[in-house]
């Protein structure tokens, strides 16, 4: 007993959870700060949150090429986790930057908002570094619970309430599936550690054919597929994205999704390797279904946030192609794609935030008619993001898609790649429609309410630079993704 405790303490290795620890500590401190702040003043909390994120970023860099395992192997801060952590941190940073002014405009200058984002991020990082289903579950829940609150943050707005509630109910529901899956896996293998599961399957190959094992594995995946909004578990996405505060929508589409991908990848590639043939078939179907559903429904959307929600579903579908490929290129491509998607999607949302009126009823296709003439710079920037979302060179979106489909093609999934590119051809239509409104229609309004504030501008600039940098000289980042992949 003595020895066991000793061992457990030795196994702790705080360095492995240091990034999320730092972030959580910052989050709690800031929660206190906001409690004692004057009501309505949030800016200082926002900037402090940025500081927190930057510090966390430096801390998590310590794990690069220096894997830290901790807590008896239930946490592993490796390159993979670090890369995803960075994505989440970037997403959180951009979210915070675009939030400050937005909260004031919408009449909710409540500074608890920022600590919540920090907690979400911490949860996301946990998910990325978890190697035990328990840790992953914890990370997932920390992330989710904070996000439920954030999605329903505008508590006087029915729309926001509805988004929060829908997210909450469906999220909790999917958690049930996830947990049941974990339980079944546990029942078969007697462990919740990912490598433990893999080792068990390796030792008992027959168990991979075990009904309970398969059911457990698949139910576990349902939980993650829900988070990444893969069809048919995507249906919450449009409603929640539309109803949630816009920065939160942006954040949800990037950070938590990336984290969910991280966990999904860790679980499938390491833990469920024995089910590879079944899972690739499953992902093949789901990837196609997801991108098709997302793209097709987006075609008839008028509300921009909702359209981007469907677009985000389809992008999840593209990213899943990397999982189907199940090779080094495809898997590292998911990392790269998530980073790219963070920049391009959050950039697009940042522009939308700038051009929205209070209540954001004007964020429809008709509402941005002639934007390109009245606000040329915003128009150009939004155009760049849209081109990136379409996957056109020389933007990051193109490299991302190229990278993902390279993996699939190298693994021999030509038809998947073909369906993928045909899907992006369909997607062109709704992205182009935005540009049609911006440039080909005469302005009906003068957009005089649009004022550029510094933090949002910074977030847009970062996104643009990211999109172009990753589009034109992506080499270094792809190298990193390669190192971070399995």
């Amino acid at each position, binding site marked *: 007993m003595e020895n066991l405790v000793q061992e457990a303490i030795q196994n702790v290795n705080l360095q492995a959870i240091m990034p999320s620890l730092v972030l959580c500590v910052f989050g709690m401190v800031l929660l206190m700060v906001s409690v004692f702040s004057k009501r309505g003043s949030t800016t200082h909390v926002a900037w402090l949150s940025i500081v927190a994120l930057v510090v966390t970023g430096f801390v998590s860099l310590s794990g690069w090429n220096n894997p830290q395992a901790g807590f008896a192997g239930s946490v592993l801060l490796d390159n993979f986790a670090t890369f995803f952590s960075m994505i989440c941190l970037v997403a959180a940073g951009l979210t915070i930057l675009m939030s400050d002014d937005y909260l004031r405009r919408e009449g909710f200058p409540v500074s608890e908002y920022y600590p919540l984002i920090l907690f979400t991020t911490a949860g996301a990082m946990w998910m990325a570094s978890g190697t035990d289903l328990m840790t992953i579950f914890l990370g997932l829940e920390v992330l989710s619970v904070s996000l439920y609150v954030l999605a329903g943050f505008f508590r006087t707005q029915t729309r926001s309430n509805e988004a929060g509630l829908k997210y909450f109910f469906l999220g909790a529901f999917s958690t049930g599936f996830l947990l049941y899956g974990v339980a079944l896996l546990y029942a078969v293998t007697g462990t919740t550690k990912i490598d433990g599961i893999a080792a068990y399957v390796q030792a008992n190959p027959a168990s991979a054919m075990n009904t309970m094992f398969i059911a457990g594995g698949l139910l576990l995946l349902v939980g993650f597929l829900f988070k990444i909004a893969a069809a048919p578990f995507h249906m919450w996405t449009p409603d929640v994205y539309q109803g949630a505060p816009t920065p939160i929508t942006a954040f949800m589409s990037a950070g938590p999704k990336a984290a969910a991908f991280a966990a999904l990848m860790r679980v499938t590639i390491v833990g469920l390797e024995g089910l590879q043939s079944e899972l690739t078939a499953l992902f093949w179907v789901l990837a196609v279904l997801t991108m098709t559903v997302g793209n097709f429904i987006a075609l008839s959307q008028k509300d921009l946030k909702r359209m981007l929600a469907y677009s985000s579903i389809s992008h999840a579908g593209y990213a899943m192609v990397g999982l189907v490929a199940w090779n080094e290129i495809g898997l590292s491509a998911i990392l790269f794609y998530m980073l790219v998607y963070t920049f391009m999607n959050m950039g697009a949302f940042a522009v939308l935030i700038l051009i929205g009126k209070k209540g954001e009823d004007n964020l429809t296709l008709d509402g941005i008619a002639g934007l390109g003439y009245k606000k040329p710079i915003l128009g150009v920037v939004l155009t760049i993001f849209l081109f990136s979302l379409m996957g056109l060179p020389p933007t990051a979106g*193109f490299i991302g898609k190229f990278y993902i489909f390279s993996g699939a093609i190298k693994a021999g999934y030509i038809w998947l790649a073909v369906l993928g*590119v045909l899907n992006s*051809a369909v997607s062109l239509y709704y992205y*182009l429609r935005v*540009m049609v409104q911006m440039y080909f229609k005469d302005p009906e309004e003068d957009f005089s309410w649009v004022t550029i504030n510094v933090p949002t501008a910074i977030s847009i600039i970062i996104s643009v630079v990211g999109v172009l940098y990753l589009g034109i000289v992506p*080499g270094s980042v792809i190298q990193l993704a390669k190192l971070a992949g399995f």
Partner: protein
Amino acid sequence: MADYLLSIMTFFPLLGILVLLFLPRDNGGLLKGFTLAVSLITFAISLPLAFDNVFTTSGGMHYREFYQWINIGDFFQMNYNLGVDGISLWLVMLTTFIVPITVLSTWNAVDKNIKGFMAMLLLLETGMLGAFVSLDLFLFYIFWELMLIPMYFLIGIWGGQNRIYAAVKFFIYTAVGSLLMLVAIIFVYYFAVQSGAPMNGFGIQELYKLDLPYNAQFWLFLAFGFSFAIKVPMFPLHTWLPDAHTEAPTAGSVILAAVLLKMGTYGYVRFAMPLFPEALPTFIPFLAFLSVVGIIYGSLVAMMQDDIKKLVAYSSVAHLGFVMLGVFSLNLQGLAGGMIQMINHGISTGALFLIVGFLYERRHTRLITEFGGVATKMPIFATIFMIVTFSSIGLPGTNGFVGEFLALMGAFQSSLRWYAVFATTGVILAAVYMLWVYQRVMFGKVTNPKNENLKDLSVREIIIMLPLLLFIFWIGIFPNTFFSKMNPAMEQMLIQMGANPVAVVEPATSETHAPAHSATPATQADGHK
């Protein structure tokens, strides 16, 4: 300078955009003048290419530039790999030549958001030049897609009534093809990687040497061919073209016709055919059939159009049918005919679009029935229109003839003989629709009072047309200027396509009129003075 010539040439317009952005947006003259200067300087930069005699002796790539761009070990490797040979040389020249002309043509035509327009034109030029000089498939693809964006805006913002439909259709239609090509590009790459062949990123020269199994070639050719066929456009993938042309502003139509469509045919010559030579024979009958259908179909449909611009657009379908037929005949004459016909089409159809633009600027309509008797009011215009019309018809002595004749000659010497017979009827039909429209627009009495006050061409407009007229005759009378630099490259290309550049057999005796040639490119090249 010479070491970086292609880069400088390609990116100079982009540099111009950067400066352009800081010019005052209200000063239209300054913006246009500046753009004109930029495009002229680009032309000047490209001029040394046209005078370089290295192309007459060697069919390989020249002005090479090579830098590693993205190198991810066993993942993939992309290089900044530029070069120009006799095949791309004249297309590059055509591009740099036509852009200043289009800039001039916008002088009075564009008054809305001039800065944006000029920026788009220059961006387009960079895209086009880049696509022509890229030797790396990946790089080519980037430039290829880059061209879509400015063209989309040119049509969508500065276009006519139905511009949105046309722009979106243009964009998506072309993108569908190119996305499939992207899949094929990636596939070729990984196939090469797995086969262990020596590679240089996506460098086509190394990929040419690849020995793909027939089955793979079949599908890959299909993907590449489909993409390029949309761009050409070949029947039945052409319907984006009339819409795009009709709605685009004059400058857009000119560039679209003169250069963008050439991307498709160039793509066949540079990529689809030499990369997949074994699949080529399977597809040639089919593609040649579509080319011939395109010629006849395009002509017949053009004949019945009531909108001049649409007529010219459909005539493009027919003209490019000749290009494709020539190229598919897989011999030197046919290829040369196809290549020169690309240039010709750029010049003649470009000129026709300018002409339609002149009419449109004056009357704001392009309906044939609105005109009639214009020749009495605009005699200079009538003369120029006449010359261009006959160039388009392919009158001997003008450029159109040399191209059509060689293309047909090549086809007659290949297995496409019967296709060629039907294609030759296009010669008749071209005369029918062009002369008919000329008659209805220019001849007769002025019956529409709105035509009473038409002004003849201004000095600027004449200056726009003169260089085009010059080349109409130059190519018609001294095409060797162009052929001498194309021949060596075409011979190499044909060998790469698995065809014997000498179409039929060796000359029986050295006494024959033509100097004796052997099949090897080296000695062939020497034969050219």
